[in-house]
């Protein structure tokens, strides 16, 4: 589904990704862990198409297409979803408008009819219940005045509504208390399916107690140094990241 080869990316002259390789198949859940500044969020941003990053080398293919050649909205319409680390507050654009416009953009791409207001409401009501969100939220501005936890729940709600093929979760656990983390994890787990792949970027092992990954990768200084199963995350929790770097440089 997602095939990343020798990906190099930089902001200005600062090199951040220095040769990332990653293969993600449908149904898989991958966790990318690493210390601060290792390039985790850059990887998510480059895959979603955020401006300001220059890819200097390497490729990323999504369902056989050159992902990096697509505009951000094209990626979204083809089923790539990025849950933001810092969801943006947009006063004056309400959540209902955004969800409906986003959903219809995706449906159009899939050759489905656009939903009218009633069908749309019926569809999102269940998903809002799952994310424990009050209906009044629909008429509020996008993320406007939301707490950290509400913002993250809103990201997962959008994901649940859009049903992406490839979900990228950028530090979705950061800033969440344990109750909010459970709600977010329930939302993500409800979306696990054989057709869908999930790539989670996270600093802490904590999230992985709730969303169990099939693969854990350690990203450090712009490269994936080690790949393992969920036991690798537990080992990182115990021993930190340094030993991975040392073993990698010894090799």
């Amino acid at each position, binding site marked *: 589904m997602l095939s990343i080869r020798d990906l190099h990316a930089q902001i200005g002259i600062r090199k951040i990704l220095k040769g990332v390789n990653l293969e993600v198949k449908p149904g898989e859940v991958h966790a990318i862990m690493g210390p601060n500044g290792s390039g985790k969020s850059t990887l998510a941003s480059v895959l*979603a198409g955020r401006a300001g990053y220059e890819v200097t080398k390497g490729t990323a293919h999504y369902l056989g297409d050159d992902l990096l050649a697509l505009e951000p909205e094209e990626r979204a319409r083809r089923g790539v979803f990025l849950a933001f680390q810092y969801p943006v507050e*947009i006063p004056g*654009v309400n959540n209902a408008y*955004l969800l409906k*416009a986003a959903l219809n*953009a995706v449906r159009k791409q899939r050759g489905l009819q656009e939903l009218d207001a009633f069908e749309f409401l019926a569809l999102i009501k269940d998903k809002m219940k799952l994310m424990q969100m009050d209906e009044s939220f629909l008429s509020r*501005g996008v993320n406007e005045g939301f707490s950290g936890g509400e913002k993250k729940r809103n990201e997962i709600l959008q994901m649940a509504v859009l049903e992406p093929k490839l979900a990228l979760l950028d530090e979705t656990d950061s800033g969440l208390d344990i109750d909010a983390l459970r709600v977010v994890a329930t939302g993500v787990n409800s979306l696990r399916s054989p057709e869908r792949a999930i790539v989670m970027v996270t600093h802490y092992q904590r999230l992985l107690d709730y969303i169990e990954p099939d693969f854990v990768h350690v990203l450090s200084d712009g490269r994936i140094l080690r790949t393992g199963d969920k036991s690798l995350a537990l080992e990182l929790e115990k021993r930190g990241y340094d030993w991975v770097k040392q073993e990698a440089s010894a090799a």
Partner: protein
Amino acid sequence: MSAIAPSPVTAHYREAFERLQSTLGGSTLRRAVAMERFAELGFPGAREEAWKYTSLRRLESRRFVPAAQSTTSVDVPAAFVAQRLVLVNGSAVGPVPAALGGFALGTLTTAPEDQLLRTFAGGGTERFTALNAALTVGPLLLSTAAGQRSDDVVQLSLVTTGAGPTLASPRIAVRMAPGSRARLLLDHVDDGAHEHFTNAVLDIELGAGAHLTLYRLQRQGERAFHIERIESRVGENACFVMRDSQLGAALARLDTRVSLDGRAAGTEITGVFLADGSRHLDSHVHVDHRAIETTSLQDYRGIAANKGRGVFNGKAIVHEGAQKSNARQVNRNLLLTPGAEIDTKPDLEIYADDVQCSHGTTTGQLDPNALFYLRSRGLSEPEARSALTRAFAGAVMARVDEPALASHVHDELDRRLVRLLEGSV
């Protein structure tokens, strides 16, 4: 007579006035004095502060023919509300009804001339107020009875039209009796067939405890010149509210001047303007706080794109003795494309010591993070820009509490923004 030699353009309007004056109605003397005042002041020079960002050279170079009493009706856009009167080049076609909604109507034959043909000193538009007083045809007086309260909106459609470039001088006087309440919608349109010049004057007075909401929509054609002065005197506990939407004309200047004369008088002047194409939209708001406990809010949102240019000049003066007054000014501007420009100047003068005043002005572009967020959800770049631009105007648009008008302005903004943004991407 003035010793100043009239320039050719003032001579042009004076000659036109002399030809027309016998047909205009009202006393010739009052009109002639106004004409002389216009000739004396002439067109603004480049150094005049009130016209710093707006050149009238193009307007001055044209020779518009002042409109006479109109005798034929014209096509106008559908009314937003049930009660509507169409004025063609300032005058009604056929007899003016005695009443419209909650207003009694008066004309030069039924109402005092000194209420209908006043001139106003001061500000950059004094000259045009005088020109209007000289040339206006069919000025209209709208008045309420004391204590009469109506929530129905009355629409006046002001159409400028003519076989060649025409000067229309519509004039509306509104007299709100104590304790009365009304809502008025002013819709400026033109036939788009020529470069017309609309020179409008609104002369408003609110008695104690009166409340007037004035909705204004300026949607004239791409070639129109538009100058307008709205002069409002607000009595004790009275409130003048204006909801302005400026979407049209090639060059438009609006001077809104409010005098808060009575204790606890208040005003709210809010608006949006869209200076796209090569449109030039200039708004001056001037509020005088002359009594204690008076309050004012000015809030304009300006959008400019392409070669469009916006000007906003907001001024509040808290005069001596106007203690416990509150004056707020907000002006936020959005430049959608690189060539666009908006000049803004907030201005507060305070001569009382126990007051609350604030002003805030910003000019910027759409937030790139918000744009990326919307695009990452599948919205196209034009859709995302359009949504953010509408959101920008939204805080002010939310105050337009006449649904049909609000929906028209929303749709028009949408249509124009999508066209604009799709063109620029």
